[in-house]
């Protein structure tokens, strides 16, 4: 019955998404969206937090965005860029007549000022700034970006919705923190009462792309009059709200609440697969700086049991070692032989013996209960690691402490985090030399540089296989598997496509 309900819910959502346009869309109505909390800021350049991206993507737009297949597609740009032969000059044509929420018209000067702010403020902008040598307005409707070397992640970075390269009026580009939330998006900020609601209303001057919606790209219809994001931080309260039908959409529910929600006033929405939990390894100091220890950890862990403990049922996870699941261009099983769903204690023991580990020094696992599934996975991991001969020390702190402690290599050997599947592999934390984990190696640099320099998507997919192989060889992190996300949706709300960062343009109410 449970299988049937899950399949039905998933199919219903898929059906409604695919055939959304078959229903009569009517304009009007207010949609209340329960979120996991209050975003730390509404400036999408200033934070990489998902919640910031979820809310702000309705107000601000980027030059490019992602289509349903996670390819980059124009949004405020008029077309894909013209890239010079040597891959270092991107000429980007802009759409004309695009209005900001203050009714001023977007020009290349606004784009240049915005991208300069992005390079100065945004984490991902700073990443791009390492290769950008110049951003210039060629004319009112054209911008040229010059790079010091070919850099394929540039377009995904320009398209991403967190630490996002949003386009704002040049006059506001010097604001830090941002105080005027003026974008070009389909909805504009009407009122923000922190911890109570963020009220967005339809921007009548919005110019949508033609045609149909396509992932985050394509047409953005404004059927709804208002979208209100309401913080409901307590997960039990979100479950109660979903069952009672208080909100039109309830984000990020614990998957074990699926049955409860199925019997309530809203319908469960399963987004599969949503993301991956990962055990990050400390290359800089401590036990995990020894590759044999990292490989022993890799061998010892039993992802099937860890995921089962974390998500309760195999309907909500897949034990899969490939860093991207099927459906992504980056998916490949090549190089994942070391991933053993039930673990390999004997190999782990042998690797530990080879490393000369005598059990006197504990392996410190840094985790929190902010995300209960992190903690549950850690408990199972502890048992398997101990069976392999590790002495394990669990450091369970709350999330803000974890974000501080993980920056100090002296404080941990392994820390637990998770991520949605990012459209561009270069955006993953382990790809950065300076991110917590501090994975730096010649092999990494070699495969990553080749991957980043290639602009042909098919060749990039082949090159990512090499990156994945090196990840398994050097174990900068241990991907536990794929897990699904659960949300709840008012049956009268239609046109919402399940997405890692849910969006509500193109959504409409049917009753």
């Amino acid at each position, binding site marked *: 019955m449970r299988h049937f309900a899950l399949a039905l819910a998933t199919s219903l959502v898929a059906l409604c998404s695919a055939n959304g346009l078959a229903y009569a869309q009517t304009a009007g109505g207010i949609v209340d969206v329960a979120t996991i909390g209050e975003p*730390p800021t509404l400036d999408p350049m200033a934070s990489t937090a998902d919640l910031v991206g979820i809310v702000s993507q309705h107000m601000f737009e980027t030059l490019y965005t992602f289509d349903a297949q996670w390819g980059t597609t124009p949004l405020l740009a008029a077309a894909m860029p013209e890239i010079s032969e040597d891959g270092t000059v991107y000429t980007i044509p802009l759409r004309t007549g695009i209005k900001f929420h203050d009714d001023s018209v977007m020009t290349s000067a606004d784009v240049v000022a915005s991208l300069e702010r992005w390079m100065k403020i945004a984490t991902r902008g700073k990443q791009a700034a390492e290769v950008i040598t110049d951003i210039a307005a060629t004319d009112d409707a054209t911008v040229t970006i010059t790079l010091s070397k070919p850099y394929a992640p540039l377009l995904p970075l320009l398209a991403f919705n967190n630490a996002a390269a949003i386009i704002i009026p040049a006059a506001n580009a010097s604001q830090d923190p941002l105080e005027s939330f003026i974008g070009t998006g389909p909805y504009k900020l009407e009122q923000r009462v*922190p911890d109570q609601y963020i009220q967005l209303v339809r921007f009548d001057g919005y110019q949508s792309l033609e045609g149909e919606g396509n992932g985050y790209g394509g047409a953005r219809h404004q059927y709804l009059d208002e979208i209100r994001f*309401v913080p409901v931080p307590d997960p039990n*309260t979100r479950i109660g709200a979903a069952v009672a039908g208080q909100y039109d959409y309830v984000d990020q529910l614990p998957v074990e609440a699926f049955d409860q929600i199925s019997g309530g006033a809203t319908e469960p929405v399963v987004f599969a697969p949503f993301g991956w939990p990962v055990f990050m390894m400390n290359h800089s100091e401590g036990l995990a700086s020894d590759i044999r220890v990292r490989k022993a950890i890799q061998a010892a862990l039993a992802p099937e049991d860890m995921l089962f403990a974390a998500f309760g049922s195999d309907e909500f996870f897949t034990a899969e070692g490939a860093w991207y699941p099927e459906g992504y261009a980056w998916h490949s099983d090549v190089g994942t032989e070391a991933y053993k769903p039930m673990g390999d204690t004997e190999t782990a023991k042998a690797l530990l013996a080879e490393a000369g580990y005598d059990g006197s020094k504990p392996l410190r696992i840094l985790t929190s209960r902010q995300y209960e599934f992190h903690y549950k996975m850690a408990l199972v991991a502890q048992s398997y690691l101990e069976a392999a001969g590790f002495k394990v020390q669990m450091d369970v702190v*709350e999330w803000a402490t974890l974000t501080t402690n993980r920056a100090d290599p002296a404080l941990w050997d392994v820390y637990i985090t998770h991520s949605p599947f990012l459209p561009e592999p270069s955006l993953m934390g382990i790809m950065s030399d300076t991110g917590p984990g501090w994975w730096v190696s010649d092999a990494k640099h070699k495969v990553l540089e080749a991957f980043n320099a290639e602009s042909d998507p098919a060749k990039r997919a082949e090159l990512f296989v090499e990156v994945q192989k090196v990840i398994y060889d050097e174990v900068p992190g241990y991907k536990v598997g794929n897990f699904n996300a659960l949300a709840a949706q008012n049956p009268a709300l239609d046109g919402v496509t399940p997405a890692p960062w849910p969006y509500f343009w193109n959504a409409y109410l049917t009753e």
Partner: protein
Amino acid sequence: MIRSALNRIFGMLVVMALVVTIVFVIVRVTPGDPAAVMLGPDATAADIASLRQRLGLDASIPQQFISYVGGVLRGDFGQSIFLNMPVTTALMQRAEPTFFLTIFALLIATLIALPVGVLSAYWRGSAFDQAATALAMFAASVPSFWLGLIFMQVFAVQLGWFDTSGYGGPGASFGERMHHLVLPATTLGLISSALITRFTRASMLDVLNDDYVRTARSKGMSEWRVVVKHALKNALIPILTVIGLTAALLISGAIVTETVFGLPGVGSLIVSAVLRRDYPLIQGALLVVAGLYVLVNFIIDMLYLLVDPRVRY
């Protein structure tokens, strides 16, 4: 009386100075960094360091303390890091739900506790007394988040009489906002009623055996007048103390209840400020809560002076 009041005011100032210092130190030595929280999970160490500098968090703790205390003495509690507004404005915005939640909860607690406590004492050892004692013990031991979730499940999810959370959307009327307070106020009120019930009972038992009560009865006074006019009036001092302290405790008790019911009050503001490590907001909010606590104690002490002139400080 004026001398006593001045002594108490001086004591209050000392307590507040200690609170400022202790809260500041605890907040700064607690691990966690507002810059890391604000920038999100993928921020680099360099980004975090740069934001810390912009927020003035790279200065030494003594420097930050001197600057903070200077601000407080001028009435400036600083700027909330995340809300990008003065701490006083943020607190004022959240004062309404907490204020009404506390008032309603206290009202519910008192309306339940006074009659139950008086009757328990009057019918000491009876079935009513035993039932009231058992219920009071249950209410005193039940966690507010659990009771809140039960109320939510029954009255919001099953019966649909109330919303599960929130304080009304844009343009919500006063009545709609108060409607959102019914479940959290009942949760807090029921829990708080336990303490007041027990104190009322104990205090009434003390006075019901006193000579003046016997004298009043022997004069043929009605039981109602004996209990209410003579006994209860004299039992009120300790009860008043407990009600006052309960009011102060309710403000801190609201922290959990507001979080469960998603009420944007001072309690949930403190929780989110702590989770985000919004230092100025944590300091300002705790200072206000401590100030209210001290103020309530001061008012109780002054009421003692009025009710019983023999009391001196």
